[in-house]
């Protein structure tokens, strides 16, 4: 069975592999950027380590949703460091069989841009399963190395 942390982001139900989740914090502890940085909302100070907070809305060209007191920061463990994303509402964990996770490339037409993310169904709800490594572009990769 695969275990995922589920949350909502801008009205989309999302899931992350639990092994990629380092910790979850309240968004009030987040420092928004005074200067716009490509795809980054700001930084999260985790015991002295400044972790970039990825702007999922900008990355996905969605109408941005304001961060509020109920928002939470999910810190993710990557191959090359840590990054964080903002969740509107962290729900909990779910377990699904691997065969019930469908890569988007298997259902979207051939020939369009390859998509690293997947979908799964749990209790009749569709969850967008994030491949965080697949989200990162060169600029964000550079930030992690900075």
């Amino acid at each position, binding site marked *: 069975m695969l275990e995922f942390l589920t949350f909502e982001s801008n009205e*989309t139900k999302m899931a992350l592999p639990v092994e990629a989740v380092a910790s979850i914090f309240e968004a009030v502890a987040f420092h928004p950027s005074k200067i716009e940085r490509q795809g980054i909302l700001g930084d999260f100070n985790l015991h002295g380590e400044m972790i970039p907070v990825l702007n999922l809305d900008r990355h996905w*060209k969605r109408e941005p949703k304001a961060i509020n007191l109920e928002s939470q920061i999910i810190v993710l463990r990557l191959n090359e460091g840590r990054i964080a994303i903002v969740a509107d509402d962290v729900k909990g964990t779910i377990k699904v069989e691997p065969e*019930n996770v469908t890569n988007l490339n298997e259902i979207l037409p051939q020939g369009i841009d390859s998509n690293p993310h997947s979908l799964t169904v749990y209790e009749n709800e569709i969850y967008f399963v994030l491949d965080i490594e697949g989200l990162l572009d060169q600029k964000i990769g550079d930030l992690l190395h900075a």
Partner: protein
Amino acid sequence: MHELLMLAIEGTVFAVPTSYLVEVLPAVALSTMPLQPDFISGVMNLRGEVLAVHDMRKHAGLAAKEIEETDKIVVASDGKIKLGILVDKIEAVQRFKEEQLFAQSLSPRAFRIIELKDRNVLIKDLQDYLDD
């Protein structure tokens, strides 16, 4: 003999070969995915299976509209993958002899054929469909 499911989008008639047809469903609320192609209306859960639902209006170059309760989703399969096709109205299943389709293809108002290829929806002129 060609058996076709006739359907309409904003008064424009299209046909889907019944060999593709899995089922027809009332339109349901779809889940949208970040960065989904603009010709995809969203995804739906069909008894545990996730399907991409294609917006026939986009494929046909027609004006977009919100999904209405009266819309239908045609679930189609080419034997490899299933997908949904969002349409305004289902008309009927009709059978056509080859010569009837040929005569229809000569009309300026000939309906076009919806086919599936490479997990995508293609719209084909009746003449091209007959030539294949």
